């Protein structure tokens, strides 16, 4: 009885909708009518014209499609393992020798930085670190084909991207050591970089959350691009993630929303074979991550991540595609092998054989592949290699030693940024801090904080 009364009351309410609502409703109905009529079934047609599948032909074969029966999607390559151009007819790539040398130097520097920071964690200098060994080519190659102001969302194993964008070793190590120069102000774990200057959103620990956010940022770009008649200034968003993260629901949500809202976003999956201990054999059953892109109506390509020139070329094409038709998502699956342990908290020999890793290291990796190509071209040799490695090592160690001695962020920093504005309570607390350290100067050495007591005083003054 009671529920019937509620239903009647509801009906009564619906019977007299406010004018705006009814107008909106009729518009919706008009739209659906249009959609329906455009897909209605023609007499004798050999195609299905259901609203959910508009170009499917009828068949009398009862046949389930099986992923395993179809060939795997091919992997695009430019260079073979020996660094030779495979399709000679296509000629040389459109990169200058200087650019090549730059990419090479960046990759080598990243690999040396990784070794040194990994050891720094072992020595207790930083609490945590993650290495990108084996995946330098994906980061450097892809970002070399993007505009430097295309906004980026990263996962954590994309160090090459930062250096290709011009991040310095000082910037990078400052984040790991949480010094005054850390733009994240010491609030995040090591490796969780972000850079406003380089248009990189701060890395989040929660897997895959960056994917739908990238769709959203791309939607914002789409609107901005539409307003800007200068096509050269149009931008895309690029979003990096691992094949493990692609099992999260957010991956699927991101591709579908980007496809349906036509967002200019390039999704770049690093498929490195592992998600901590979970191998791709247990991560998914289909044809990698690429096959899913097709399912969501997203233009998709698979590329050899150890071939930096192929990654570069593919990303360049993907970027152009993402800007076409007012915006559309593109998916790149870059294949590689995670040579390193997952992080400093992991010992990967508990779940994979050491020989497997050694084998990959020796057989193929992005650094040696580009090196061979440059040697074949006659622009690189053993001498230069030695010099580069010793220079890079020295630069990393210099930056490392500098960061070790660097001051910490200003003291007032600890109460800021919880909200966009400092709250009244926090202002009061900062005053208390100031009074305390002034009262007991021999107890508190503020020299380690940037600006020391003076900075604290002027912040308090400014907040008054």
């Amino acid at each position, binding site marked *: 009885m009671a529920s019937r009364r509620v239903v009647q009351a509801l009906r009564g309410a619906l019977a007299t909708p406010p004018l705006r609502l009814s107008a909106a409703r009729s518009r919706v109905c008009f739209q659906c009518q249009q959609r329906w009529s455009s897909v209605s079934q023609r007499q004798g047609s050999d195609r299905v014209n259901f609203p959910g599948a508009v170009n499917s032909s009828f068949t009398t074969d009862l046949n389930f499609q099986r992923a395993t029966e179809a060939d795997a999607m091919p992997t695009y390559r430019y260079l073979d393992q020996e660094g030779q151009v495979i399709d000679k007819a296509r000629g040389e790539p459109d990169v200058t020798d200087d650019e090549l040398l730059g990419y090479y130097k960046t990759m080598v520097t990243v690999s040396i930085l990784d070794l040194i920071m990994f050891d720094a964690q072992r020595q207790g200098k930083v609490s*945590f670190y993650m290495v990108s060994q084996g995946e330098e080519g994906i980061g450097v190659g892809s970002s070399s084909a993007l505009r430097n102001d295309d906004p980026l969302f990263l996962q954590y194993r994309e160090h090459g991207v930062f250096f290709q964008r011009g991040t310095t070793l000082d910037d990078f190590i400052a984040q790991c050591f949480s010094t005054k120069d850390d733009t994240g102000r010491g*609030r995040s774990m090591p490796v969780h970089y972000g850079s406003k200057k380089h248009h990189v959103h701060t890395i989040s*620990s*929660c897997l895959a959350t960056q994917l739908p956010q990238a769709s959203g940022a791309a939607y914002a770009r789409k609107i901005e691009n539409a307003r800007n008649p200068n096509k050269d200034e149009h931008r895309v968003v690029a979003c990096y993630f691992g094949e493990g993260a692609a099992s999260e629901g957010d991956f699927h949500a991101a591709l579908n929303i980007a496809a349906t809202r036509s967002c200019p976003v390039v999704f770049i999956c690093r498929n490195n074979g592992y998600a*901590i201990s*979970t191998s791709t054999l247990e991560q998914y059953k289909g044809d990698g991550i690429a096959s899913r892109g097709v399912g969501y109506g997203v233009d998709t390509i698979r590329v050899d991540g150890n071939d930096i020139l192929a990654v570069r070329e593919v990303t360049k094409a993907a970027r152009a595609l993402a800007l076409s038709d007012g915006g559309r998502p593109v998916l790149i699956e870059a294949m590689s092998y995670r040579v390193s342990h997952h992080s400093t908290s992991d010992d990967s020999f508990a*779940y994979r054989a050491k020989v497997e890793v050694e084998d990959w290291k020796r057989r193929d990796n992005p650094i040696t592949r580009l090196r061979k190509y440059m040697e074949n071209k006659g622009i690189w040799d053993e001498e230069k290699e030695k010099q580069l490695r010793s220079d890079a090592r020295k630069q990393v160690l210099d930056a490392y030693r500098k960061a070790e001695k660097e001051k910490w962020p200003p003291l007032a920093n600890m109460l800021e940024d919880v909200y966009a504005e400092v709250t009244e309570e*926090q202002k009061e607390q900062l005053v*208390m801090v100031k*009074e305390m350290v002034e009262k007991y100067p021999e107890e508190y050495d503020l020299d380690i904080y940037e600006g020391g007591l003076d900075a604290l005083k002027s912040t308090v003054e400014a907040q008054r």
Partner: protein
Amino acid sequence: MVAARLLRPAARLLRPSPSIRPTATFQRVSAPTASRWRTYASENGPKEMTVRDALNEALAEEMEVNPKVFILGEEVAQYNGAYKVTKGLLDRFGEKRVIDSPITESGFAGLCVGAALAGLHPVCEFMTFNFAMQAIDQVINSAAKTHYMSGGIQPCNITFRGPNGFAAGVAAQHSQDYSAWYGSIPGLKVVAPYSSEDAKGLLKAAIRDPNPVCVLENELLYGLSFPMSEAAQKDDFVLPFGKAKIERPGKDLTIVTLSRNVGLCLVAADALKSKYGVEAEVINLRSIKPLDIEAIVNSVKKTGLMMAVESGFPMFGVGAELIALTVEYAFDYLDAPPVRVTGAEVPTPYAQKLEEMSFPTPELITEYAAKLLKV
């Protein structure tokens, strides 16, 4: 002053204190208990066991007696669990019952909920409860409510477990305490073990309980050893839900606390005794939902003073609930307004010193207790 309550005076952050990681702090916390049972002197009688091993034993025993129990989660099988809680279980029970999942919390939690709705008794391990955020819809909107909404025809005997709360040096997104979140949901039961006995008894009870239960463990406790009584070593040992444990009796002050904070409060209680000669009663809640309000009221009747210690954020938290209940049921026995010591009102900082000061410490608890006691 509101500020002092919500975000503890910042001046405190500058107090010179020995620099210790939370883990190190904690080693000290368990030391008094541990030293009492240092040896495996006799065959029977109490023995030492880590919280990790106690959880492992609970899982193994329940899987042994109940073929409907299985474990699913990220890295639980081949890798023996991200924190090695499921060590050896794959070898012992096989891959049909100890199952690795792809990296999809909503996927494997959803699978577990589905299996529970179909009559199995899954144990769903989250690598940490921070990652359970990806699956919280399955926990709250499905696991907790389906039995009710189906008119009681769909069982949901499921155990969600994993580390909760902050660990060392893992910053804002990996350092949250979800006790209050899950504790507020009708249909869920929630427990938070402190010692090895708690861990074993509560996890076994959770697996046996016909309802969805969240077992909120703590990463910093996994490696600590506690005595296991003879009874607790048996495979029929379970602890009842909704029963708190008086870890330390006392007549002057009631400290109500849970999980890792129990250890901190015990250290604080010792300090209160040696410094001021007062006896604090430390109540280990063990179970957050249902909550043993009777134990709190009985204690407050004796002491007249109440303090809640927990490591969630200050507002709308477990401490708030404990104090509200105390005021509702024992107002007339209170000699002073109750106080709470909680985590600070800030996303957990990465910096070691700031992290240390974002959560209760024995010193902070002692200080607040002394103020409340006016000693």
